[in-house]
């Protein structure tokens, strides 16, 4: 082992104060919308809106926009301006350009007549408003005089405290405290009563301001801080005030967790009761706020600090962070452990820090030219009273846990990189880049050659060798089981833990587990980004450190904490997730360590409630102006304005809303615009719901309201009925006119038919007449022909008869001879016959 290449000689060590922690913070300036960077006092309206009095007058902030008031109102603008909220009324007092003014705001500003001459006013004018017998009483401290009056009175009353100066007036839980240069008084029934405090135990009785919580008085004096309960005074510490300047503004607040903050023309400070010290509140580890005018704790437990350089806000409930600026040897925290006596060891790449109480002892590790130094793991050997530090190329450093001034011994070889230490049954196992060793008699004894062991972990007697590319090997002292994965990233393992029966692995590919002899993805939680650290805490929660924050998994919900939540950095080192004996979770990152205290209630942070501030309909009228929120169809659009008065991180508030739970899904929106317009809504009943959440955390409670769009008139029963009636009437009219037309047509047709019939009848008559005439003519002709025939026959038969008669006569003659007469008769008859025939022929020709 070549000691020359090793580190180990303690060069120096020095101490810092653990209180130099810093909280997630934000600085507001004019660029954020503030009217002025000079802020003098802070208050919060019961609605949640934050109020400030600035060099430009009062202003309020609804987590989205800053609202100012016109100069013409002559509101206070001076450094002595104060602002208080009493019974939802905002009060301001202070100097404006010309005079001292007191005004209150209940939707508009109301000035209160004051008669104090400017010259009467000292550098500080304590001001408050108390509620006495239902009427606001205004109190002003003018040097030794306490002036007071109600809003109904025109004259001021005063009480004098000769020889004293009134430093502050605080009204807390019904008690009005008057802090003076010589003791604390209570104002009650228009009298001042000195509160009995044993000032003998205090540097002096000059009380700058006071606050009270859980029957404990918190007193900020000049220059001390003390607490009083049950009649006992407890001096805590010197307050660290600037002795060379007069205190003009002072405040002290106690947050919901009991943390005490104060400021008195100093940086705002948090008190460490255990160490009896204070620490400035830092902005990203830096002192930015140097002369606070007010410190205020809002109802979300955000700490607001005002000063002439802007407005500052601290999220105390989130992680408490430490880095180099706040006392660590360097920023990156690579390994964490806690010794049996409670001391916490934080490993930096080339240093480590011993935290005891409020003191950080930083140990620099002297090193030679060795290329890679990095504290990769720290383990305490309680049986031997030793602490082992694996420092990669620098080898294994072994300290006595009672003496960190120099290593007890070191173990190092060329080319060996010590990566991890694990102690099982007093056996100290050490992993290196080429195998598993056991420390025996202050020497490394090779047990198992294996390249690339990155970390060691043991569960009972089983020792897990976590490698950088070959999965894991499980060694039980006898045999070795090897688990790998076809997925190269899953075979690169950083850390292991057992969670609810599953052996889970932090790998480059995400969360893996052991299944059927192989490393596979863990079914319970799909995380496929690099995971370096895993910790199962005492509450059976799983902390998972990756390369962009730390996840917290309770078996159901997964929540990511990152720098937006106040986490120091983004990358969590593999042996830097640790739960201390108090249950606090230490998270080592590349930019410091973040501590999550067990008393931090996560749910309190994420339970964001949305307030619907205004709902107006399409014509500009408020929805409330409509009975039962029922809007006429002609007014079928609404604009919903809403706000979420959360100041934890205004830029990360997200909303989601839906107009009707039965139809649509949620629509998500940011905090950029806080109104939604729904136009051309159909008739029906709507339920508007809206929720908010911080970043991607769980959604908060639902704020909802129901409204109804009436049916359009053309869908109302009466209109439909009217239409039916009109339609029926129209049909009837149409039918009637049609009937009339038909009747007219019928009449016309009838007339036509009649005319035609008459014509036809006439024609028929004419025809009949013609037929009749013709028939008669024919009959006559026939008759004539007949008669003619008969006549002709007669005329024919006449001569013929005579001839025949002649022949009869001739036949009857015995001689058969014809006499002349008969012959003559026959000749004449023949001639006659011939003439008749010619005559008939002529007649026929004529016919």
């Amino acid at each position: 082992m070549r000691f020359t290449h090793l580190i180990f000689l303690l060069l120096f060590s020095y101490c810092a104060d653990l209180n130099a922690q810093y909280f997630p913070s934000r600085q507001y300036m004019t660029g954020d919308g503030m009217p002025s960077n000079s802020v003098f006092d802070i208050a919060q309206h019961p609605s949640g809106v934050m109020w400030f009095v600035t060099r430009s007058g009062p202003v309020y902030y609804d987590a989205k926009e800053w609202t100012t008031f016109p100069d013409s109102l002559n509101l206070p603008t001076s450094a002595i301006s104060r602002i208080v909220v009493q019974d939802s009324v905002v009060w301001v007092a202070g100097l404006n350009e010309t005079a001292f003014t007191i005004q209150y705001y209940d939707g508009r500003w109301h000035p209160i007549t004051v008669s104090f001459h400017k010259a009467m006013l000292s550098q500080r004018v304590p001001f408050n408003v108390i509620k006495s017998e239902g009427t606001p009483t205004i109190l002003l401290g003018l040097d030794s005089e306490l002036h007071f009056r109600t809003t109904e009175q025109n004259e001021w009353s005063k009480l004098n405290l000769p020889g004293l100066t009134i430093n502050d007036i605080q009204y807390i839980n019904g008690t009005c405290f008057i802090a003076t240069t010589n003791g604390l008084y209570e104002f009650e029934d228009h009298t001042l009563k000195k509160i009995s405090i044993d000032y003998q135990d205090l540097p002096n009785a000059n009380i700058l301001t006071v606050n009270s919580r859980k029957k404990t008085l918190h007193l900020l004096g000049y220059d001390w801080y003390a607490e009083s309960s049950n009649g006992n005074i407890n001096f805590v510490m010197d307050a660290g005030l600037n002795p060379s300047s007069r205190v003009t503004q002072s405040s002290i607040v106690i947050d919901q967790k009991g943390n005490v903050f104060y400021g008195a023309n100093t940086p705002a400070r948090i008190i460490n009761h255990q160490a009896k010290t204070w620490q400035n509140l830092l902005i990203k580890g830096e002192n930015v706020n140097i002369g606070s005018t007010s410190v205020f704790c809002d109802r979300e437990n955000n700490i607001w600090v005002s000063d002439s350089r802007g407005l500052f806000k601290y999220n105390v409930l989130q992680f408490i962070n430490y880095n180099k600026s706040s006392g660590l040897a360097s920023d990156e925290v690579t390994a964490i452990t806690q010794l049996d006596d409670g001391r916490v060891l934080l490993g930096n790449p080339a240093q480590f820090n011993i935290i005891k109480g409020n003191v950080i002892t930083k140990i620099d590790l002297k090193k030679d030219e060795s290329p890679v130094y990095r504290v990769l793991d720290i383990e305490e050997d309680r049986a031997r009273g030793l602490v082992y530090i694996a420092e990669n190329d620098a080898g294994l450093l072994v300290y006595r846990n009672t003496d960190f001034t120099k290593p007890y011994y070191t173990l190092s070889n060329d080319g060996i990189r010590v990566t991890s230490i694990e102690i099982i049954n007093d056996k100290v196992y050490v992993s290196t880049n080429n195998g598993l060793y056991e420390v025996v008699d202050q020497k490394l004894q090779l047990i198992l050659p294996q390249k690339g062991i990155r970390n060691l972990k043991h569960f009972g007697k089983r020792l897990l060798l976590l490698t950088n590319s070959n999965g894991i090997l499980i060694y039980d002292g006898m045999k070795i089981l090897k688990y790998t994965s076809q997925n190269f990233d899953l075979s690169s393992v950083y850390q292991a833990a057992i969670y609810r029966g599953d052996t889970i692995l932090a790998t480059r590919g995400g969360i893996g587990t052991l299944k059927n002899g192989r490393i596979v993805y863990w079914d319970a939680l799909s995380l496929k980004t690099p995971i370096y650290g895993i910790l199962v805490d005492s509450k059976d929660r799983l902390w998972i450190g990756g390369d962009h924050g730390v996840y917290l998994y309770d078996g159901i919900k997964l929540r990511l904490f990152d720098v937006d939540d106040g986490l120091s950095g983004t990358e969590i080192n593999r042996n830097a997730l640790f739960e201390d004996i108090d249950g606090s979770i230490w998270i080592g990152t590349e930019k410091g360590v973040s501590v999550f205290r067990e008393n931090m209630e996560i749910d309190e942070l994420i339970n964001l409630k949305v307030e619907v501030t205004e709902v107006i309909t399409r014509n500009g009228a408020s929805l409330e102006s409509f009975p039962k929120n029922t809007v006429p169809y002609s007014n079928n659009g609404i604009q919903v304005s809403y706000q979420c008065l959360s100041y934890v991180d205004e830029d990360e508030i997200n909303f989601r809303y839906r107009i009707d739970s039965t139809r649509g899904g949620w629509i998500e929106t940011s905090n950029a615009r806080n109104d939604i317009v729904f136009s051309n809504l159909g008739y029906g009943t709507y339920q508007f719901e809206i929720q908010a959440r911080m970043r991607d955390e769980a959604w908060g409670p639902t704020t909802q309201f129901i409204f109804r769009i009436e049916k359009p008139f053309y869908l109302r029963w009466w209109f439909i009925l009217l239409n039916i009636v009109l339609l029926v009437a129209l049909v009837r009219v149409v039918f009637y006119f049609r009937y009339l037309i038909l009747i007219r047509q019928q009449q016309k047709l009838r007339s036509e038919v009649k005319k035609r019939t008459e014509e036809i009848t006439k024609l028929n008559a004419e025809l009949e007449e013609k037929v009749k005439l013709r028939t008669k003519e024919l009959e006559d002709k026939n008759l004539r022909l007949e008669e003619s025939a008969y006549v002709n026959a007669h005329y024919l038969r006449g001569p013929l008869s005579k001839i025949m008669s002649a022949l009869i006569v001739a036949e009857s003659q015995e001689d058969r001879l014809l006499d002349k007469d008969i012959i003559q008769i026959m000749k004449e008859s023949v001639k006659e016959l011939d003439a008749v025939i010619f005559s008939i022929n002529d007649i026929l020709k004529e016919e």
Partner: protein
Amino acid sequence: MANLRVLLIDDDPSVNFLNKLIIEKSDIGAEIIEHTEADKALDQLANGQLAPDLILLDINMPVMNGWQFAESYEKLPETSRSSKVMILSSSINPSDKELAENSPVINGFFSKPLTIESVQQINQILTIDN
């Protein structure tokens, strides 16, 4: 039986002549009177100058045709109209036969030429009637 007196009324004397010869040839022993003008024959009948048993009457005659004669003859006193009147005509007009049948004074209709058989038939009719 006494001699049958027959009055022949026909405007054609040759017809009357031939009919007289035929009646005579029929051996019915008839006395034959000829007349060519019906109106004068009627006058003689009316004043009793003529009292034939049979009048053979032609239809188509000038001045007074056969029908006019029959009509007038009907109007004669019963004593002047004891003769049987029969039409002897060359007409084949059915209406003439119908008129003859409907006339109360005409007892028969015979078409010309008068034959011996028809004379004997007439005689037989007359005999039966008497």
